[in-house]
């Protein structure tokens, strides 16, 4: 056998071999090169694909571009509202599925998770038909901002709360029921137990699920396109329209801002999650 280990080298020390390191680097490059170039060119002085000098001008232009600004604030508003509702709804769904036994529970559990796998285009068409036939599409058109976004918000809650439910449900599996019993034994009512014991235990999953819902909502294109009326444009939809008309580095600048928003949301969420460890 020629495969001898060198002194000090463990049998699973692959990470120190050059070809593995090269592979790691390639994977990272593949993942991040497009994003990196997007960010880099957001600082380019002109809109050719060649670097001609550094500027913040694109950011200023994007900020002053009312249409981009409007679309971005729509997107963030929709994301915030739909995150709150889908977190509550998803958390409650998960609790129901974990806590109670009822007929057709397995089927119910399956149907709750179904929107995760149903192709977005199908869900988009379905929602579009629903909003049109119910008259909601026409009705909200004249409503004051942000109520004119209500179609999109409904649609986003519908597709993102199952994600929250799945995340919270899997955390609840690890809950020690004796914690709940201890709380009641110590004099707490059912509701006090829920607030003081169960919610803190669910919190990391609620945060993670909420974050998932937030990012899903922020960059959703297909479903949004189908459920939005002519007045209510979101950021991804707006960008799509702009790209159709030609390259503009304002798009890069606005996208970079969006990346920053999601990134900082993630960081905050991770910070929030850190102190709450598992419940045993």
């Amino acid at each position, binding site marked *: 056998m020629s495969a001898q280990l060198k002194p000090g080298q463990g049998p699973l020390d692959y990470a120190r071999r050059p070809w593995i390191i090269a592979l790691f680097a390639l994977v990272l490059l593949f993942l991040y090169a497009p994003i990196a170039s997007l960010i880099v060119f957001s600082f380019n002085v002109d809109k050719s694909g060649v670097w001609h000098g550094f500027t913040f001008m694109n950011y200023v232009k994007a900020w002053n571009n009312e249409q981009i600004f409007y679309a971005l604030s729509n997107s963030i508003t929709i994301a915030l509202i739909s995150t709150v509702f889908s977190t509550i709804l998803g958390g409650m769904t998960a609790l129901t599925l974990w806590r109670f036994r009822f007929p057709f529970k397995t089927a119910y559990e399956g149907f709750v998770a179904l929107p995760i796998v149903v192709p977005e285009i199908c869900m988009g068409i379905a929602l579009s038909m629903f909003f049109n036939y119910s008259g909601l599409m026409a009705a909200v058109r004249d409503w004051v901002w942000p109520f004119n976004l209500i179609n999109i918000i409904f649609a986003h809650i519908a597709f993102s709360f199952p994600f929250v439910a799945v995340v919270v449900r899997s955390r609840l599996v690890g809950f*020690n029921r*004796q*914690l709940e*019993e*201890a*709380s*009641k*034994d*110590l*004099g*707490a*009512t059912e509701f*006090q137990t829920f607030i*003081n*014991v169960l919610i*803190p*235990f669910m919190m990391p999953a609620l945060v993670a699920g909420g974050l998932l819902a937030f990012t899903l909502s922020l960059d959703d294109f297909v479903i949004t396109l189908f459920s939005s009326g002519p007045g209510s444009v979101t950021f991804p939809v707006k960008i799509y329209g702009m790209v159709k008309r030609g390259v503009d580095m304002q798009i890069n600048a606005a996208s970079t801002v969006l990346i920053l928003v999601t990134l900082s949301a993630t960081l905050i969420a991770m910070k929030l999650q850190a*102190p*709450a*460890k*598992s*419940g*045993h």
Partner: protein
Amino acid sequence: MSEPIISIRNVSKRFAGGVTAVDNVSIDIAQNEFFALLGPSGCGKTTLLRMISGLETPTEGQIIIGGQDMAFTPPNLRPTNMVFQSYAVFPHMTVEQNVGYGLKVTGVPAAEIKTRVAEALEMVKLAHLAARKPDQMSGGQRQRVALARALVKRPKVLLLDEPLSALDAKLRDDMRMELTRLQQTVGITFIIVTHDQDEALSMASRIAVMDKGAVAQIATPSELYEHPRNKFVADFIGKVNLLDASVLSQKGKTVTCETKAAGKFAIETDKTCGSTATIAIRPEKLKLSASEPKGAGLVKTKATVRDVAYYGDTSHVVADAGGSDLEINVQNDSRTGGSGVERGQKLWVSFNPEDALVLTE
């Protein structure tokens, strides 16, 4: 016995699917008792404890706590508190918050909570760890938190579900003493569930031995050990040699019987025997000797040593007498000789019939 603090009357618990976990149990527990529910796993002792706490409701029967039937009162309204087997210390709260939790949710004023929590932590010697989170503590410390958290509520009865089972041997011994001490200082009735007979014998003032959902015997530790009511109790509490005997005659309290292991002998009993009985004798009450022991009334037999297990202070000897195994405990009371017993030796085994017991069930 004075007015019982807890009176369990004809309580049964049947689970869906026809399993009877607790079968018509009646127990009275007095104020200030250290009471143990002892039995093998699946005997219903934990279910009974959970019914006392309110985490489980009985199918039938009464659970009278402090003079009130509380069989269907929810746990948060009962004057009982529980120390859980997994401790169930709240992971997201500090020690102080954990201990204060039961007071806070019942609306005790903050200032009073503060003093009572401090007192409780003092009592379990955790005052210096008040600001810690449970994940920075050892199992023994977490258990003290669970204890303080229950005691701070000043319950009429403290329930302990297998409190020592998750601790290592040394800590277990310390905790046993600690629990006994605590029970004496706070003067609260303790009810402990355990499958460990040593634990029950060393801590409890009275023990209920449970078997298949029913109470086999309720007695003090020494009574249980020396006067077990039936074979199950004799066998479960400590080690015992159970000799099958055929009863030859009974005159008043004196029974003449014959066993394979020890031949024919007479023994006193209060029981009325049929044609067969079981003679129970503890291993430490059997004596080994090289020469034939002398003494009036001794029961003696020749036996071949099959096995010797060394335990430091004692050696456990298994000897074959007339085709049945006898277990004998020998004190190793000299450093040089050990027990001096070796495998294959032929020795005399003897006992005083007063130390043996006739069992009919």
